[in-house]
């Protein structure tokens, strides 16, 4: 309860300082939306050309894409800035201040650094997800809605956990940003298309090593009734929330070990 109150205070201040530069604030969101549309267009052109990608239609691929973008957007609002800044904060000793407050360091970092640019992500993600559900005639039963929400929670947890873990690397090595870029951006790009189109190595990697597959591919099989696409085992379709929770717990454990590794700076 205290945390919610406190967070609303921080958000208020954040918005106040950001809205001083109103133009920049809305530009950030607009740029995100434009980036999204460019991607959308690319996908549309390609699928117009080929009709389907291994049996996945345009709206099915878009559905896949949306689960990724929406969960990335939600976790990005909270975790992206803190984890990006972490490397610098650890190197210049600014992290000192975080450790002398009566709030856990991770929430405090999140409170201090909201990222509004992802609002665009989230809004568009929701909008086009609704579009997909419509076009694909997915049944909106109570059960399906609950399932979708649980999948989104699980997917957001996976995205967040991976951001936290890549952030933790800063406590051991300098120059962690390039690693986190590779994992958060380059590797995640595979999620734009169904996992089944890639070779076995990529499939294995994105299922067991960095379980990105659970963000969108596996749960999509469930919603889109793609029985023919099963990889490894069919039960993975139900795995998103469990994988999300486990991975998040793992990331928190690594985080607390990492914080105690913090060496501060000499000046």
């Amino acid at each position, binding site marked *: 309860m*205290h945390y919610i*109150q*406190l967070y609303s*205070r*921080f958000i208020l*201040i954040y918005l*106040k*300082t950001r809205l001083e530069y109103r133009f920049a604030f809305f530009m950030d969101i607009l740029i995100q939306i434009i980036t999204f549309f460019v991607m959308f267009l690319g996908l549309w052109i390609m699928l117009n050309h080929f009709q389907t990608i291994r049996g996945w239609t345009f709206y099915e691929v878009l559905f896949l894409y949306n689960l990724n973008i929406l969960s990335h957007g939600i976790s990005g609002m909270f975790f992206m800035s803190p984890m990006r800044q972490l490397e610098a904060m650890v190197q210049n*000793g*600014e992290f*000192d*201040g975080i*450790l*002398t*407050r*009566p*709030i*856990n*360091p991770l929430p405090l970092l999140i409170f201090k650094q909201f990222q509004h640019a992802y609002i665009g992500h989230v809004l568009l993600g929701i909008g086009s997800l609704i579009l997909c559900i419509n076009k694909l005639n997915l049944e909106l039963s109570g059960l399906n809605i609950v399932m979708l929400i649980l999948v989104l929670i699980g997917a957001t947890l996976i995205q967040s956990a991976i951001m936290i873990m890549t952030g933790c690397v800063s406590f051991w090595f300098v120059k962690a940003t390039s690693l986190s870029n590779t994992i958060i951006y380059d590797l995640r790009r595979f999620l734009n298309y169904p996992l089944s189109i890639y070779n076995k190595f990529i499939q294995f990697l994105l299922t067991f090593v960095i379980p990105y597959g659970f963000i969108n591919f596996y749960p999509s099989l469930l919603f889109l009734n793609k029985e023919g696409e099963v990889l490894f085992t069919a039960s993975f379709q139900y795995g998103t929330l469990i994988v999300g929770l486990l991975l998040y717990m793992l990331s928190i454990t690594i985080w607390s070990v990492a914080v*105690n590794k*913090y*060496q*501060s700076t*000499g*000046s």
Partner: protein
Amino acid sequence: MSLISVNNLTKQFQRPIRQEGFTGAVKDLFHRQYEYKTAVNDISFQINQGEIVGYLGPNGAGKSTTIKMMVGILVPTAGSVTVNELIPYKNRKIHAKNIGVVFGQRTQLWWDIPVTESLLLMKYMYKIPNDQYRKNIELFSDILDLHEFKNTAVRQLSLGQRMRADLCAALLHDPKILFLDEPTIGLDVVVKEKIREFIKEINKVRQTTVVLTTHDMDDVEKLCSRVIVIDHGQIMYDGNISHLKDKYGSDEIITIEPEHNHDLISLRDKLLSLNVMDTKIKDLKLQITYNKGDINSMQILSKIMSESSIIDFTIQPCEIDEVIRRMYTENSLKGKLKI
């Protein structure tokens, strides 16, 4: 049980040794080599409620490192710290409510927002009740003169203003203990004085225990009832300030520039009759080192002025670093003599 209890505390930093060139970088990746730096080496002390303790030592002595272990930022390599019966790094959240922390080099306030908003944030973060908050803000703003810049964004404050705001922020939640790492660094005399007054007042009224590091002898003289001196991570002295000064710290240096260079030698000879410790001629100036207990500056100056005319003179008071250096050389000499 003392409020702060430090026992055989040691901190060793690990620094990767980087190898040169591309092959070096690749080697680093697979086989990292480290060097170790012992910043704090097996120190122990106890501090009781209500004390103001100066934690002193030359650059790189290990002062900040010790403070960082006491506030819970760093995890000790060996030994232990207990503050108010808590182990700081294990109980960061509760510990944070018991302490106030100010680093002179770095602000703890929010960079982009006005001071008042930053302070308000402290209220919510520390769950400070309304009337306590109001009372403290009023009191602190008066002593520290915060009124003139309370609506300014922190990044626009001068160093002195920022320090005062930082001090206020660190004390709003009525902490039992205040840790200050070089609180007067880079400040002018007036602000320094204001800050010292404030610290003294808080200590007197609230019985707040204060641990501070500084390189300014005036801070120590005006504030500290007790000093702990460390060098190379080890305790050199722990006791009251007057004893330390009597023993090592009452030397001052007067530097004189006579009008006529040929007076230098004769002046020096004349001074030999006085009870001074050392005289030196350097860059056409005469440097006289004396002990304040034996003779005062007026006696020396009047003797000189009766003998010749001078253009300029300066008096260099005893610096804490100088005291420590002297103490160190003396101790290491003693060590050598024993062998």
